């Protein structure tokens, strides 16, 4: 059960043009920096569909892949912080599907849990409902939404062991555990990689069964979008 690989270069082997990737993170918090950076060195990989809550900023996160024109389509809930993204979207180079955030999370969860579709109230009566089945339960209206799956899911955790068990830190957890379950191959990059037995089984967030490759990331920048502080 040793899923450890040496580095990002080894971890992303097999990702090819036209694939669908899930990429964890909320804003720039909890994004798999090493894998994104490695993918950006392989400009021959393009036409990607990326499922990720956000699209990074101009020069960081998924913004790097957008700048390289490696992304064909983004499936996200909020994409506001990126000028190049806006340019590509308005010019029609980039396809964008916007999904309510809770629906996006649940669709990833459903994909990993073998639930092909579910009803949710989010988006009823709005343009999100166009073309979707609507059903009433106890007097309230709901939309039918389907699962999401990916060829590769790329997630970032705080600690992991070589079995692929993962522990996230604070709000860097966000979409990572859900996406980890929904990839045919899930790659986890972690800040600390330890041997089985060193992590407390009570504290595991993502059980190793979902993870196929794991490596210790390096040089985490962890860029902050809105640095807000209290003065002493």
């Amino acid at each position: 059960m040793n899923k450890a690989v040496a580095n990002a270069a080894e971890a992303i082997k097999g990702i090819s043009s036209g694939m669908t990737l899930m990429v964890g993170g909320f804003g720039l918090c909890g994004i798999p920096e090493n894998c994104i950076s490695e993918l950006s060195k392989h400009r021959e990989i393009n036409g990607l569909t990326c499922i990720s809550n956000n699209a990074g900023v101009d020069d960081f996160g998924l913004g790097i892949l957008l700048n390289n024109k490696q992304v064909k389509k983004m499936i996200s809930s909020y994409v506001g912080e990126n000028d190049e993204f806006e340019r590509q979207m308005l010019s029609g180079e980039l396809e964008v599907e916007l999904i309510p955030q809770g629906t996006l999370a649940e669709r990833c969860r459903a994909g990993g849990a073998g639930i092909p579709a579910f009803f949710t109230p989010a988006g009823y009566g709005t343009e999100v409902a166009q073309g979707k089945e609507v059903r009433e339960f106890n007097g309230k209206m709901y939309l039918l939404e389907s699962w999401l799956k990916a060829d590769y899911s790329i997630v970032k955790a705080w600690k992991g062991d070589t079995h692929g068990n993962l522990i996230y830190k604070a709000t860097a957890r966000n979409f990572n555990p859900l996406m980890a379950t929904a990839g045919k191959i899930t790659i986890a990059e972690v800040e600390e990689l330890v041997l089985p037995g060193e992590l407390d089984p009570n504290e595991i967030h993502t059980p190793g069964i979902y993870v196929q490759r794991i490596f210790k990331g390096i040089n985490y920048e962890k860029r902050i979008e809105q640095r807000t502080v209290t003065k002493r």
Partner: protein
Amino acid sequence: MLDKNGIAKRIAQELQEGFYVNLGIGIPTLVANYIPHGINVVLQSENGLLGMGPFPYEDEVDPDLINAGKQTITTIPGSSFFDSAASFGMIRGEHVQLTVLGAMEVSQEGDIANWKIPGKMVKGMGGAMDLVASAKNIIVAMQHVNKVGESKLLPKCTLPLTGVKCVKKIVTELAVIEIVNGSFKLLERAPGISVEQIKNATAGNLIVEGEIPEMVIN
């Protein structure tokens, strides 16, 4: 007339002991500064935190700890973290007692539009559609009129909707208004504001019953 902090102070009066509350970006965030003394509420941030604390001191900034507005924040004793599906599960499951958010338009039916202006850059709805579709109690914090002086309280929304028949109450710089049976019902006037001024700033059907009290803002 109230300023942004005044609107936040008035909304803070709606908080009750034991409430779990989700505060949106903008004026709603300011509500956290005016939680009444002696009332315990827990703030939910939909990116995966219950028990949001104030901004950190410079030397305590943690890039792994942010709120839904991507601002660095802190936790408080008793906080918990969870993933995004669990977060929206607690929202959809009606475990969060109060949601406060901003709006571009609200209709007299309680419809809300706050995510998209056709022809302009579309940034996305984020968690707004999930929040308005599910919250038991939604208060909108906004300006009564837009930048060119047009009412934002309308018979029908003109912008793409975020949710339908969901807003319960609106607090603006001029008034506190409740949505009742497809109309705006005037509950309170802002200090120094007349009923006439509120009528003039409200395009939708406004119900005014009896003497309308002035808000008490400390």
